């Protein structure tokens, strides 16, 4: 895999390039596959943790779900349905197998002590809401990511300028605010002056722009919170990069500021920037829970909070798994971008 360049056996550059290209692709592929495998292993353990949640439920939760009046038979039937009479590993395998085909089980709610079961499949509850959450997250990301990168990079370039100080103080303040504080301030402004809808009760058939209009405030809240985080991280990453000796060398070669940035800093900046973006999109996933509740936005976060309040474990598990998988996937993507832009891997020894 690694070539040693000992005297006399160096191939001509053409042959070297032709011969090495396959190897390079292999090396990158290997590294990516390793990273993917790690992601799968992580997901496996995460699913194990989420699955085991049901193990810790108190013994009488059957009564709690079905109501005081539940007969012993209905409780027993309920426990059987959950598979509590089977060994844990068997249930885990069944659960994972079902999840893999998109079946998250059925909700606890809608069950009655009489044994009548009006509960809905978890998937049916999550799917439309997941769509809404992704909608909110994407329109936020489309504004927040470019804005944060722009602010972060410019602040790093004009370090210690008034601009940098102002942006810094503002973002430091705004990352300290809880999301609901930002949200209520915006609602206040909106109610007093802006006249934007403060309830984001979007529905399925709604036209696209009406959805956007209704989602403006939640999206703005998320943007404010996330831009602050992301801008600070971008700034730190770029400043770190600009401190490299090779940047000073480029300046000492008389290169213009723009050229130093574009040619010398940028090719090495993809990995840190990708990490920053992924981290913050992941943060978006979490922040969305509170914001959805504030604006009564019908997303996964709201669903999960309701399920937690009513201790509807299958729904909680489904939501948690979706959030965790998104989180893992985003970090995975950032790492892979880091791998394919790393010159040391692109051009192995």
């Amino acid at each position, binding site marked *: 895999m690694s070539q040693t360049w000992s005297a006399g056996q160096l191939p001509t550059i053409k042959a070297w390039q032709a011969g090495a290209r396959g190897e390079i692709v292999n090396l990158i592929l290997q590294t990516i596959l390793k990273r993917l495998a790690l992601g799968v292993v*992580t997901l496996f353990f995460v699913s194990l943790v989420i699955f085991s949640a049901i193990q*810790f439920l108190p013994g009488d939760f059957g009564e709690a779900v079905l109501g005081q009046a539940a007969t012993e038979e209905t409780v027993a039937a309920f426990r059987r349905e959950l598979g509590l009479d089977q060994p844990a590993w068997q249930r885990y395998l069944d659960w994972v197998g079902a999840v893999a085909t998109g079946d998250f089980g059925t909700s606890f709610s809608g069950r009655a002590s009489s044994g009548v079961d009006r509960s809905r499949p978890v998937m049916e509850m999550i799917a439309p809401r997941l769509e809404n959450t992704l909608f909110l997250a994407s329109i936020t990301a489309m504004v927040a990511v470019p804005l944060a990168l722009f602010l972060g990079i410019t602040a790093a370039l004009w370090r210690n300028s008034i601009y940098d100080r102002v942006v810094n103080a503002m973002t430091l303040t705004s990352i300290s*605010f809880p999301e609901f*504080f930002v949200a*209520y301030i915006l609602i206040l402004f909106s109610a007093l002056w802006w006249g934007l809808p403060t309830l984001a009760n979007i529905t399925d058939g709604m036209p696209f722009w009406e959805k956007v209009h209704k989602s403006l405030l939640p999206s703005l809240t998320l943007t404010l919170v996330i831009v602050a985080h992301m801008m600070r991280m971008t700034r730190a990453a770029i400043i770190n990069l600009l401190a490299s000796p090779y940047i000073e060398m480029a300046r000492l070669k008389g290169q213009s500021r723009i050229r130093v940035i574009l040619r010398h800093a940028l090719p090495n900046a993809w990995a840190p920037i990708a990490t920053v973006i992924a981290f913050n999109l992941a943060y978006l996933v979490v922040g969305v829970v509170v914001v959805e509740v504030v604006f009564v936005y019908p997303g996964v976060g709201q669903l999960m*909070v309701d399920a937690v309040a009513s201790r509807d474990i299958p729904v909680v*598990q489904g939501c*948690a798994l979706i959030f*965790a998988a998104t989180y893992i996937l985003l970090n995975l993507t950032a790492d892979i971008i880091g791998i394919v832009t790393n010159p040391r891997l692109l051009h192995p020894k």
Partner: protein
Amino acid sequence: MTDTNTYSAASEVASTITRRTRWERMKIALKKAPLTAWFGMIVIAFYLFVAVFAQWLAPHGEADNSFAAYLPWGEPGHVFGTDQIGRDVFSRLIYGAQNTIGIALATTLLSFMIGGTLGLAASIRGGWTDQILSRIVDILMAIPSLIFALMLLSVFGSTAGSLIIIIALLDSTRVFRITRSVAVNVVVMDYVEAARLRGEGLGWVMRREILPNIMPPLVAEFGLRFSFVFLTIASLSFLGVGLQPPTADWGSMVRESASLMQFVQYDLKSGLTPLLPAGAIALITVAVNYVVDWFLHMTSGLKD
């Protein structure tokens, strides 16, 4: 050939720092502290004062609902009016300081005890201990902590005890990471090796050689973790799965009064009621962040 009689080791000039006592250094640092840091310190001091003396400061009891519901602001004896079941909002704000700060502080301390100890152990022991602990932490951190907390609370129920333990455990993963990463840099220092070669035990090496040298970043991290824990608990309470009534806490106060927001056009003051606890939360996290930012700037030695 060489004349070195003029040379003496003791008179060697060094770029030494003039010796100052801790108190003198603190005074100098405080003198140079930026406005934001002063603001932060004053706010924190004020909050702590209110939290400690809540019982004496509050005009009414925490759960005293003997008043009419939804009294407006400025009603005699009720600066900020009363809430939906007739409890004095001002008193609840004061008790809220005690409850929320107390729980956040207890949680942060616990998470530092767990994460800090394990992080130190991982960095000193290295090898398998480090590998296993680090992998477990990686996995736990792959689930967003608010989501994880929601899930665990749904299983174990929301009591102050389970809240503290669950958040502390989840947060200790981050404490573990930072402790480990700072300590790893100290562990490789020659003075740690020198202590091991001398035959010192693990406890001595940890207490005397490593801990004093990782304190500054850990102190800063304590501030950051505290404000993060504070926000998490407030968020959970806001979502209705944190501290349960009748305990006064700022997160649930926001939720309970949120509906008043709709009437802001008609009665500005009442409409602002949910912003009081929300603002109280925002203010302390901003204050802590300002102080931490200043502290980091001071200890990093970076002049940027």
